[in-house]
């Protein structure tokens, strides 16, 4: 150890140009033959460069005029200065890390933590944006569905109201029909009851066909006392829900009409009762129409004649 220290001191003097000729010769021969000694010179040389770079060299002028004569040594001095500066900066960074809550970690761990933190922040921002967009989309969808539901609800309500209205109409129609039926049945019953006693009611059965043949025309002989003429219009069999009857003179003038009539005897005939006062002596045409849905169809036409009887003296 002592020998190494003596060698280093001598080499230092040699490098600064302070060795004697004899010392120089010995040192240089040893440099060529002793590898360890050569390494020692490199080491001392490096120490001298570092001291100069740090501003610690005592004989600065001698160092610059002798030691730095070679371009390679100047380049090494510049490198040593850069290294010294880097090490100083690194010490400051280490001290500030030691003062922070996060204790000093190897550089790669600190960068990994930074990268992970940045990644986590980006992920959070991206997640928040996605959630906002998704919320907005879902709200719009809910609103659309609510609107559709309201529209369906209104439509159903409207349909229900319409149905109710139709039901009420049908109920009214049914009641009306019942009333008419009852009235007619009562009329029929009255007529049937009073037919034998009432000398003043005349009945006539008409068959379909239009014939003015004198011998085939159905004729009703009405006395002055006759109050009504009952006509039974025979049909061909098709039973309509209701019928309309129009009585016209031969000249085409409508004398009497009635609708919403029902057929009797399973659709075989329709019965009407005409006031006798309407019927002067003349020929008459009867049109029978059957109602199907909202329109009337001609079922048959009939022809009859009325003859007025004179009172006997």
């Amino acid at each position: 150890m002592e020998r190494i220290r003596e060698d280093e001191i001598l080499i230092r003097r040699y490098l600064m140009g302070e060795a004697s000729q004899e010392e120089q010769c010995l040192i240089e021969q040893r440099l060529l033959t002793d590898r360890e000694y050569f390494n020692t010179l490199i080491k001392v040389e490096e120490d001298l460069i570092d001291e100069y770079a740090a501003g610690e060299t005592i004989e600065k002028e001698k160092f610059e005029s002798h030691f730095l004569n070679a371009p390679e040594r100047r380049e090494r001095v510049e490198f040593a200065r850069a290294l010294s500066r880097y090490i100083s900066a690194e010490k400051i960074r280490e001290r500030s890390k030691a003062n922070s809550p996060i204790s000093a970690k190897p550089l790669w761990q600190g960068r990994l933590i930074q990268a992970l933190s940045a990644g986590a922040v980006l992920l959070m921002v991206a997640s928040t944006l996605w959630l906002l967009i998704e919320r907005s989309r879902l709200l719009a969808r809910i609103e659309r569905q609510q609107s559709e539901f309201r529209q369906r609800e209104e439509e159903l309500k409207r349909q229900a109201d319409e149905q109710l209205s139709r039901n009420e109409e049908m109920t009214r129609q049914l009641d009306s029909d019942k009333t008419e039926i009852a009235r007619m049945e009562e009329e029929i019953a009255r007529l049937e009851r009073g037919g034998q006693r009432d000398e003043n009611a005349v009945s006539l059965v008409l068959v379909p066909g239009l014939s003015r043949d004198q011998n085939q025309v159905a004729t009703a002989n009405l006395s002055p006392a006759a109050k009504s003429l009952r006509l039974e219009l025979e049909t061909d069999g098709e039973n309509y829900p209701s019928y309309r009857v129009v009585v016209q003179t031969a000249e085409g003038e409508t004398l009497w009409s009635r609708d919403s009539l029902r057929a009797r005897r399973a659709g075989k005939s329709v019965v009407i009762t005409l006031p006798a006062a309407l019927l002067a002596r003349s020929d008459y045409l009867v049109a029978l129409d059957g109602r199907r849905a909202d329109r009337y169809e001609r079922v048959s036409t009939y022809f009859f004649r009325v003859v007025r009887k004179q009172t006997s003296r």
Partner: protein
Amino acid sequence: MTQEAFDRLLAFLDLDRDRAGARYEEIRSQLIKIFMCRGCAVPEELADETINRVARRLQEISSAYEGDPALYFYGVAQMVHLEYVRRKPVPLPPPPPNATEEAELKYECLEKCMESLSDANRELILAYYGEDNHAKIDRRKELAERLGIGANALWIRAHRIRERLRECVSRCLKNRQQ
């Protein structure tokens, strides 16, 4: 130098060609260092001149020479140095105190090169060169004990890393200048 002369030179250094080649490189770097230590501005040129002269004379002396061949190189190197000094070369101008721009570039390159080191090597460099004066000696001793190696082995390790850094910085500067 002709191939024949170079082969003769290697044979002069060692009969084993590989060992002779290694020895040749050692002697060349040692001669460069000697010329540099003597304050010569062109140590590589002077070292190569020395080697060429030795190679030229080998045909005359190799059979009779005894002793370490390196010392023969030293003798020729002395002559080469004397001639150099007699030529009174113009000394290099002193280095500028602050070549700021280049220093900044060098620092940036060093930062980049330090990042390319392994964590272990980087920590070793910071620890080995991180202290001044007496603290430096204690720190290096402590570092050597921690690594379980001697002081010399520690220095060799640190020096090699430092040389690699220096070469890295040199390449970086060349790339930037191109």
